[in-house]
């Protein structure tokens, strides 16, 4: 396996609705920006990995159409679709193509255009014999798990609201972020419409239109093209059983994320993640999930997640800033969301994050979350 680094990233402005660009144009804009950031042209790209959940737009074979937007003409192109983890899965697939020696430069692009379809309906079109008869949308399923999490761990709606506030305040410094709410407060979150007890509207992620791309290069090529590349040091994926009720206390145990994080930490030599990781971009579709993920990622002991948000440890000036970009809570084009996590983590190492840059980042964590608790964990480093 060769060492591989991210040498460039690019994003569209994420928004509720991009009437000005179709899917291929969103992909082209993100890809073009990533290539410019990497200082290369489309001719330098050897292979392309795409990420999208086509059920949300109702357009089959999008890779055939948007591949061209990613410079795929006469090149190997493939598409990955694994729900919320699609983007991180595509990043891992692209890494494999580059690390294996098959290709020297690989472009990964994820996108989604939720404004074109019915996202909640798309999510309900899973098992036709079981899930469709008892559909309550993503928010209903999250709310069920959260009711267990609150009962056992004692986290409060105020602590969850603090996560939502942190995300949107960070997003206000990120020009690509969809939701721009610099004046958000805990009171505003708690007084927003109740979607499913105890989840308020502002506890949930939005549905966005947008695309994100990143460029991988191997070994010497990465070093010659980039002064400070973001080296991929570990990637671990874990899947779990298929139905919501198969997992005992799903949000509490999150055995996929727990297991993937332990394995990744072991590969890199991390024993104290809160202090050894400099920044994290985690896939938190709902405020409460970020608290649960703190525990699963080993950032605190079980039951201590509320304390971590109360004492500001994960704020921009805390010991481990979590989601300086504003996270999924501020921007969620599903096929792109995982790519955004990895790209934002890479930007922090490359010192290209602008107004939401964290100082002195050498080690960055990115995660993906999808379906009923699948997880990806990716660790990037300034050190080869």
């Amino acid at each position, binding site marked *: 396996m060769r060492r591989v680094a991210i040498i460039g990233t690019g994003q569209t402005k994420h928004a509720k609705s991009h*009437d000005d660009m179709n899917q291929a144009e969103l992909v082209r804009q993100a890809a073009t920006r990533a290539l410019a950031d990497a200082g290369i042209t489309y001719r330098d790209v050897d292979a392309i990995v795409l990420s999208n959940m086509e059920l949300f737009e109702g357009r089959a074979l999008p890779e055939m159409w948007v591949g061209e937007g990613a410079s795929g003409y006469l090149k190997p192109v493939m598409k990955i679709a694994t729900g919320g983890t699609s983007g991180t899965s595509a990043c891992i697939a692209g890494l494999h193509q580059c690390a294996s020696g098959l290709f020297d430069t690989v472009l990964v692009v994820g996108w989604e255009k939720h404004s074109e379809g019915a996202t909640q309906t798309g999510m309900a079109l899973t098992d036709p*014999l079981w899930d469709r008869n*008892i559909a309550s949308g993503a*928010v209903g*399923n999250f709310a069920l*798990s*959260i009711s267990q999490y609150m009962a056992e761990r004692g986290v409060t709606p105020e602590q969850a609201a603090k996560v939502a506030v942190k995300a949107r305040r960070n997003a206000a410094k990120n020009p690509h972020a969809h939701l721009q709410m610099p004046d958000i407060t805990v009171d505003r979150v708690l007084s927003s419409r109740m*979607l*499913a007890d105890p989840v308020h509207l502002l506890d949930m992620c939005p549905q966005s239109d947008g695309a994100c791309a990143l460029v991988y290069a191997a070994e010497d090529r990465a070093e010659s093209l980039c002064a400070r590349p973001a080296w991929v040091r570990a990637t671990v994926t874990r899947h779990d059983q298929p139905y919501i009720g*198969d997992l005992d206390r799903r949000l509490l145990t999150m055995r996929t994320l727990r297991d993937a994080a332990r394995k990744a930490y072991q590969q890199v030599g991390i024993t104290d993640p809160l202090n050894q990781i400099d920044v994290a971009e985690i896939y938190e579709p709902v405020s409460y999930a970020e608290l649960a993920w703190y525990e699963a990622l080993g950032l605190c002991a079980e039951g201590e997640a509320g304390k971590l948000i109360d004492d500001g440890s994960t704020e921009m000036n805390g010991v481990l800033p979590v989601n300086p970009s504003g996270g999924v809570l501020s921007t969620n084009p599903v096929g792109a969301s995982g790519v955004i996590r990895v790209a934002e983590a890479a930007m922090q190492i490359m010192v290209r994050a602008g107004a939401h840059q964290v100082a002195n980042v050498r080690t960055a964590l990115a995660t993906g979350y999808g379906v009923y608790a699948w997880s990806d964990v990716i660790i990037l480093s300034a050190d080869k």
Partner: protein
Amino acid sequence: MTELLRISHTMNMDWRYGTSWYFAKFIRALQDKRLILGLRCPVCRRVYLPPRPVCGNCYAEMREWVEVKDIGTVLAATVVHVPIIDPLTGQPRPAPYGMALIQLDGADTTINFYLAENDAAKLHIGMRVRAVWREQRTGTLSDIVHFKEVSS
């Protein structure tokens, strides 16, 4: 500058899903006998709902059918206030409605299902609930209308 457009499509599509004999057996028992059947893993002994051929934990084939009660314990509960599109009808499902993760007596997994109660203040973890069956059953999971608190 040319005005931007949105072109609307509405599609009616027909699908025909095979059940495999696992789900066919489950759904026949539900429709004909008001019986809920789970499958027990020969290795870890967990009893699964919904039925499927393999225990994910042990990767063992399951063949032992087990009768599960239509009464169980609520392990998680919520009231949904937003009208989600019902995938069976294409229409919004009227809100609010209660949802729970229910562990049926005799099963080791939980199922998520609708509750008769839609007042969050009246829902609590640990409450006992029983299935309310449709008089005219058609051979789908919706032959159970919802679960209702068992009065003690």
